[in-house]
């Protein structure tokens, strides 16, 4: 029988006490009033908040102590992450660094790179962004055209990246770049570089999204010099490296909690004006959320044991983002037509926000179509 591994796991007691710590921290830092404002979430950067999170020991939680990490376990980390996300905390500045850039450095970086970059990441001071998509290469990542040619002491990079979330507040980018022509496979000849976004020749142009928010940017490289010691991993091994990075990007609780805030606010509304439709709507969404969370915890445990959960991560991301999109659509469909109080207007505003932000959920970090292709491969269909 075809088996995907989603064996649920029970949380350790240490994770439960951590959860209470995080909740207490959030009550102090964010208060309850924030919940009715437009949800800030994991893409929203707030450097001051990131530093506070860091001082609690919640960045680099599972990294080695010698790099500033805390050597906690994956389930403890999962609990902390999900509490921050469920609260809509503004973790955007450090999120990518913690989730994938740091682990990528741990896996493929030199000792010097780890010593240089990991400790400030764990202090919430250093922020990375992701350099993958380009105007002509989105889902087809191997079609990237940004090139690096070898020069004395390093490389010269020319090209551009696009849809780079928070590039404008980031210090470094881990960029996938072509360093050699492919011979037998177009996956050959790719490499990853750690690029200082303050380098001469780099310009960053934020793009307004359909809500008028500038959350992602185009980044242009005009003969940007990158020193040899900023090559990440092996030259030509970029495709394998990026594949690893992608499952890190896909499997976290942010893949089903992006619009949870709206469900929570609707829950308060329903508690005040309860009816059958409200109960059923909440019950339906709660059952899905409960299941997604169990799957996510299973993946965290699976990965912690050194197993490869990349297909499971694709499953979770597809189901999770569909769920995230359902929340505003469902709630919009069941709200009473007469909404006058301030609280009711706040819900309407939140519905409007998530209706507009939801198309992104199933596009970013790997489109739904790509994910389904990955799952189909595991089913031996391709």
């Amino acid at each position, binding site marked *: 029988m075809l088996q995907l591994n989603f064996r649920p796991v029970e*949380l350790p007691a240490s994770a439960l006490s951590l959860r209470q710590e995080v909740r207490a921290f959030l009550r102090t830092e964010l208060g309850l009033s924030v919940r009715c404002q437009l949800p800030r979430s994991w893409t929203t950067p707030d450097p001051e908040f990131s530093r506070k999170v860091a001082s609690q020991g919640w960045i680099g939680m599972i990294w080695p102590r010698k790099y500033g990490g805390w050597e906690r376990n994956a389930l403890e980390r999962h609990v902390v992450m999900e509490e921050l996300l469920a609260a809509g905390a503004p973790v955007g500045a450090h999120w990518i660094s913690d989730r994938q850039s740091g682990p990528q450095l741990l896996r493929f970086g030199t000792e010097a790179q780890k010593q240089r970059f990991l400790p400030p990441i764990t202090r919430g001071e250093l922020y990375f962004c992701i350099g993958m998509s380009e105007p002509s290469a989105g889902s087809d990542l191997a079609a990237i055209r940004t090139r690096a040619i070898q020069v004395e002491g390093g490389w010269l990079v020319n090209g551009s990246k696009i849809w780079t979330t928070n590039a404008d507040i980031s210090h470094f980018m881990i960029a996938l770049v072509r360093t050699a022509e492919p011979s037998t496979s177009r996956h050959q000849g790719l490499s990853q570089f750690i690029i200082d976004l303050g380098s001469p020749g780099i310009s960053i142009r934020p793009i307004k999204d359909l809500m008028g928010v500038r959350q992602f940017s185009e980044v242009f490289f005009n003969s940007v010099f990158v020193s040899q010691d900023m090559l990440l991993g092996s030259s030509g091994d970029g495709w394998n490296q990026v594949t690893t990075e992608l499952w890190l990007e896909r499997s976290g609780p942010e893949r089903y909690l992006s619009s949870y805030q709206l469900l929570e606010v609707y829950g308060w509304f329903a508690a005040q004006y309860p009816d059958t439709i409200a*109960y059923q709507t909440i019950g339906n969404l709660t059952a899905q959320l409960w299941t997604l969370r*169990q799957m996510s915890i299973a993946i965290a445990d699976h990965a912690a044991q050194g197993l490869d959960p990349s297909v499971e991560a694709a499953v979770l991301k597809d189901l999770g983002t569909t769920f995230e999109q359902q929340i505003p659509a469902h709630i919009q469909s069941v709200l009473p037509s007469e909404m006058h109080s301030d609280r009711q207007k706040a819900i309407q505003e939140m519905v409007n926000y998530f209706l507009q932000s939801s198309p992104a959920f199933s596009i970013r970090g790997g489109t739904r179509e790509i994910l389904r292709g990955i799952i189909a491969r*595991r089913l031996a269909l391709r």
Partner: protein
Amino acid sequence: MSAEATDTLVGAVDRLFEHLASAEGPRDTSSLNESAWRRLEEVGVTSLLVPETEGGYGGGWRDLEAVLHSAGFWALSLPIAETILVRGLLGPAGAQVPPGAISFNVTTDASLQCAAEHGPNVFTGTIRDVPWGRNISFVLFDVLAERERLRVLASTEAAFVTASSNIAGEPRDDLKFVNAPVTVINKGNYDLMTLGALIRVFQISGALDYILNLSVRYVLERKQFGRPLAEFQVIQHQLAVLAEEVAAVRCAAMAAASAAESGFASFEIAAAKLRANLAVSHSTSIAHQCHGAIGLTEEYSLQRATRRLWAWRSEFGNDRYWSEWLGIEALNLRSLTIWQAITDRDGDRVSPS
């Protein structure tokens, strides 16, 4: 049971279930297959939840999940799930476990009267849609008695049986009792609606797994336009979606089983049943669509699974029932938020750190 013991048992029953399923006709018969039932009793799987000291396997909810996943996968037309469950409930309730197949259901409109102060309890009423009601000697049910819900075990000897079946042809019979003496037993942690939902989750999970495997095999073999259906992207993506649903329901089933060990898992069981229900429509559509016309025949095995899935979605709580239950539970004032309602329950089940 140890993990190894579970694996051994599940491996054995899986082969047995496959064998028994292959001997079944395409349209389920209305009588219990006695020789098949005897094989199950010989293996002892029907006493899975009975303690070892009483001759059973001493298994728990997780073991039940594994066994019923297999039973659901092979779509056996036998009251295995019901018998295992009821035998598991009777012992701890201090009741004698009768031999043979046994079943249960919930009833909302019947009531129990006590005939005399020290006399036997006497029941008049109808238990509807009892799984395999016509084939069993005893039935377990929860009933209202003077504003209190009681659990009752009744012999079916004097019951009037009205035979009926669900969409899959599984017997679902009404049992009418008039002044029948019954035994009241200890109710335990969970009501029968919740327990019924739990076993159906396990079976639904198995049947979904079956239709995924069958569909994948079919599209790899079937050729049109000069190539296997599996090479068409639309088919690949449809089956990927089916695989996602199968994975989600299996995870939910296992998580509900784990939670049930704690004795306080009504929330998890409700969530799992609802999640399983939500998977049925889309999953059965995909499986049928990928099969084309051959999947519409009685002869091909797809319908044995899909008709059960459609039936089981409604048994022991459809979407409306559990979504309303869960919505009320999630808005319970003990938790400030839905998130807390879900996560604070982790505290009931903690592994040593």
